[in-house]
Every structure is written in C-alpha cells, then in structure tokens.
C-alpha cells in the first residue's frame, strides 16, 4: 500500500515537470501554429544555464530566475530570425526547421560545456528528505509537486484576466481579426514564443538538481511532451495538465506492475486515446 502511495507521489512529481515543458509547447502551437521540435533542446539549455550560473554564483534561486530568461532570449532570436519566414507553410517545414535548430543547439552545448555530465545541487533549504510512513522522500520532489499547480494556476489567471493574456487568446483564435483590431501580431508572436521557451527554461532549471545534465538530454523529453499535448488536446491548458499527470503516473506504476512493458505504455495509451477521442481528452474542437 505504501509503495503504491510512493509511486503515486513519484508519478505526480514527474508529471509536474512534464507539464511545465509541455505547456510551453502547447502555447506556442496554439498561437503560432508551430510544433517546435527544438523545445526539448531549450529545456536542455535551461538546465545547462542553471548549472553555469550555480557554479559561478552558488546561488540556485538566482539561477532559477535568470536561466529561463536567457533561454527566452535565445527563443526570441530563433523566432524572429528563423521561424518568421516559415509561418503559414506546411507543418512539416516547421518540424524540419526546428529540427535543424535542435541539431545546432545540441552540438553548441557540447562545444561549450564539453560532452561530460554535470550535476547541480538543490538549494540547502530543499536538500533534505522527509519521512513518510516507512519511506524517505526528497524535499525537492515535493517542492516540484507543489510548484507545478502554482505555476499552472498563475498561467491560467494570466490568460484569463490580463490584457496580454486576452490578446494572446484572441490571436490564437483568429490571427487576421487580431491584426484588424490593432494587435501587432509580429510582436505578439515573438512574445509568445519567448514565453513558451521561458517555460521550457523553467522546466530545465527546475530539473537540473534532479537529472544528470548531459548532451541530448532534451531528445527524450520532446517526444514525451508531444504525447502529453496531443493526448490532452493541442492548445488546451487543462489538457496538458491532465496529459502530463497521466504520463507521469503510468511511468511510475508501469515500473512497479508492468516492468517489461514500460517502454511501450505511453505509446499504447496514446493510440487508445487518439482512437477514442481523436482530438485529445480535453479539446475544445470536436
């Protein structure tokens, strides 16, 4: 029973991290109509920047604030210089272009930080463990577990109540109309892309104390994020949350109950959901 509960916590905290990364992906897709293959690489950049800042300043909190901002700046460059010419083209072009960006980022990271592995310590405040029943559980995982919904709610409030949030939602529904009522779509797109990459950066910086930071660490997470946003419903906020939780939980329980099939479980789940709800679980379209 307690093992069951432990794996529940494991699944949820893994899901929270996936949620942060997927939500950036889904926002970018919702507004810009671009499926960003390089999103995982931007997550990786977030982790590397976090590592760099921590090793210079020994301040994790500073790194958590600063690293995602730097990632967002990289995102701004990518959007305004590379993505802008391919809007409106077939989705395959955007995939191919962002795949090119992925290749460049992956190698650039290796040239800058070498091909070895790095680690980041959690801040002292979160470095301990708590005792839950017969088990110990890391405080940092609990921190992520609570931070996830917090960020989710913050985003929801932003889109619901602020002017910018409304502008973004308006543009995602109808680009021409948005331009017609005086929204500068170019600026908005850059802003949204930077926002999405900022979220990837936050995910990377938050993951840094949990993962070995190494080359290509974004390649796996990108496929998982694709699955999350698709089963949740592309462009849907609560959908991304639900999708991330489901994926996190099947990873955790799969390891416990179906160890031989864990590799295939996410894909089987994906197929079942898409075949029963072709637009994802919580999609607004039908």
């Amino acid at each position, binding site marked *: 029973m307690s093992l069951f509960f432990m794996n529940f916590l494991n699944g949820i905290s893994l899901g929270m991290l996936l949620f942060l990364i997927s939500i950036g992906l889904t926002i970018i897709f919702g507004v810009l109509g671009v499926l960003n293959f390089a999103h995982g690489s931007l997550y990786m950049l977030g982790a590397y920047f976090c590592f760099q800042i921590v090793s210079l300043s020994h301040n994790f909190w500073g790194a958590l604030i600063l690293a995602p901002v730097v990632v967002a700046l990289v995102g701004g460059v990518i959007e305004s210089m590379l993505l802008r010419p391919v809007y409106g083209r077939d989705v395959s072009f955007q995939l191919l272009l962002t795949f090119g*960006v992925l290749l460049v980022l992956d190698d650039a990271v290796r040239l800058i930080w070498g091909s070895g592995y790095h680690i980041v310590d959690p801040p002292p405040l979160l470095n301990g463990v708590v005792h839950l029943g017969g088990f110990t559980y890391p405080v940092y995982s609990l921190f992520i577990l609570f931070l996830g919904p917090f960020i989710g709610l913050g985003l929801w409030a932003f889109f619901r109540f602020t002017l910018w949030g409304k502008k973004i939602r308006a543009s995602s529904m109808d680009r021409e109309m948005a331009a017609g009522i005086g929204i500068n779509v170019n600026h908005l797109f850059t802003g949204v892309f930077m926002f999405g990459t900022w979220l990837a950066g936050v995910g990377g910086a938050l993951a840094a104390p949990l993962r070995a930071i190494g080359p290509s660490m974004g390649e796996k997470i990108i496929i998982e994020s694709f699955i999350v946003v698709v089963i949740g419903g592309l462009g849907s906020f609560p959908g991304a949350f639900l999708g991330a939780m489901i994926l996190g939980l099947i990873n955790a329980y799969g390891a416990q109950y179906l160890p031989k*099939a864990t590799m295939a479980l996410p894909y089987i789940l994906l*197929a079942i959901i*898409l075949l029963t709800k072709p637009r994802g679980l919580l999609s607004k379209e039908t």
Partner: protein
Amino acid sequence: MNGSARKKALLAFAALVLLGVLPFVVGTYSIMLITEIMIMGIFALSFNLLFGYTGLLSFGHAAFFGVSGYVTAFLLIHDFPSLLLALLLGTLAAALAAIVVGYFSVRLDEIYFAILTLGFGMMFYTLVHQWRSVTGGSDGLTGLVLPSLGIGKLSIDVSSPKSFYFIVAVFFIITILVLLRIVRSSFGLILMSIRENKERAAFTGINIRAYRLASFVISGFFAGVAGGLFAVFDRMASPSMLHWTASAEPVLMTVLGGAHVFFGPVIGAILFFFIEHVITKFTDIWMIFLGAILIPLVIFFPDGVLGTLMTRRKKMREARREGEE
C-alpha cells in the same frame, strides 16, 4: 508539349546510362554510398506517396521499413535459401503491418495522424527491442549470410558491392515506374483530390478512408522493399531501423527535396547523403554543420530544393515568353 515529352525521355535515358556507368568509374565506397542513396530513395518515395500525394504526414514509417528488414534478416539468418523470396516475404510482412496500422490511423488527419503513426512506430520498436529470443533485442539480428542470387543459370554474388548495386538499381527503377504509374492513374488523381479538399472529395462519393488506406498500404509495401534491401545491404537488422529518428529520415529527405514533385524525395536523399558525407569528411562535429545547412535550405526553398527550382524555372520561362510576345 511534344518537345517537353522528348526532353523527359532524353533525361530518363541519360539517368539510366549514368546509373549503369557509374559503378565502373567510381570507387567501392562511392558505389556503396549510391546504393544506400537508392535504398533510402525508395524509402522516401514510398513515404511521399502518403505525404505529398495523399496529404498524410506519417511519423512512423520506419515501422514498415524495419518489419521488412527484420523478417528478411530473420529468414536469412536461419539459412533461408532464396534471397529474393526472403525479400518478398519481408515486404509482404511490411504491407501486412501497414494494413493494421493504416486501418486505425487513416481516420485521423494532420498532426494527429503524425503523432498516432509515431506511436504505432514506437510500439513496433519496443517489440523488436524487448523480444530478445526472436529479434535479438537491442543487439538485433547480425551477421547475415547472403545466399547467392540465382536467376536461371546465372549466379550472382550478392555480397560484392557492384552486383548488389545493380540489384538495388533494378528495384529502384521498378519502384519509380510503379509509383509513377500509380500517381498518374485515376487512383492517384483521387488521392490528390483528397489531399486538396477532403470534404469536397467526400461529397463526390469517394470513400476517403478506403483510398487513404490503400495509399497507406502501398506506401508501407515500398517502405518494406527498402527495409529488406537495407537489411541485406548492412547484413543486419537493428532496432534503430524502427526508431522514430529513422522515421524522421524520409520526412527530412522529402521536405528537403520537395514533396510536390515526384523526384523530390530522391533529390532530397542525394542532397542529404552528399551534405553528410562532405561534413563528416572534415569534422566529427557534424550536427551543428548539418543544422546550419538545413535551416537556410528550409527557409529559402519553400517547396523543397527540386520543387522550388522547378517552379522558378517555369516562372522564368513564362516571363521570357511574355517578353517575347
């Protein structure tokens, strides 16, 4: 019109002569590289029947490539006597897999179709990766022993790069002829009308799912042809053949060359291998260079390299004609 047809025939003849002469003038490695380009060309062409002509972006096409590769390799490892028959069985297995995957997948569109096929592809990947007793697991099936190819009294040593080149060339040409025939038939026209406007096609009484499924299976069949040849070429079947990164390769080649011209995928395959070959020749940090070349190619060739060049030439010719008038 007549002139253009004659030009095309001339071009085809020149390409055939080139294919025939090349292995006698270039080195062993180049022969192998061209062989691989032709195999990947078959793979990319098969993918493009689905993508360019039917409007469905499959991200799991490596499944059929791999299934055929594994079946072929499995048979050859167990001393199957006939290479051609092994290839045929591998290809049929791929087509069978395509019927199953296609049956479920073609009901979806666009990105949902892409992600669903990716999911199915990765299920096949997991299967070969985990089924150690039959597929060899992560190690794959390696060290294929190639039976000699007997046609009548003629016996061909398949393991020689030159003779295998010609075998692949024959398959390559047959694939091109069959696929050309398909896309130019009324069946092909219907596929394209589905691509352009699904609703309108449905109104005219076309069973969209059936046509899409047919396209999917034909496409999976030819991906199987490529996969079987690839296993023979590399003397192995490895799980990496079925991974989603392998599915990305024909996508890359097709988009690079141009999805809306028949030979686009082939040009894409040539370009891709050429770029990679040149880059890895002078550096082992190949990713950053490949990326740096891919990005501008995507930006400046909105219809793929071959597609964009052809449109540009057409426009120039029209402009000249207008000038003359």
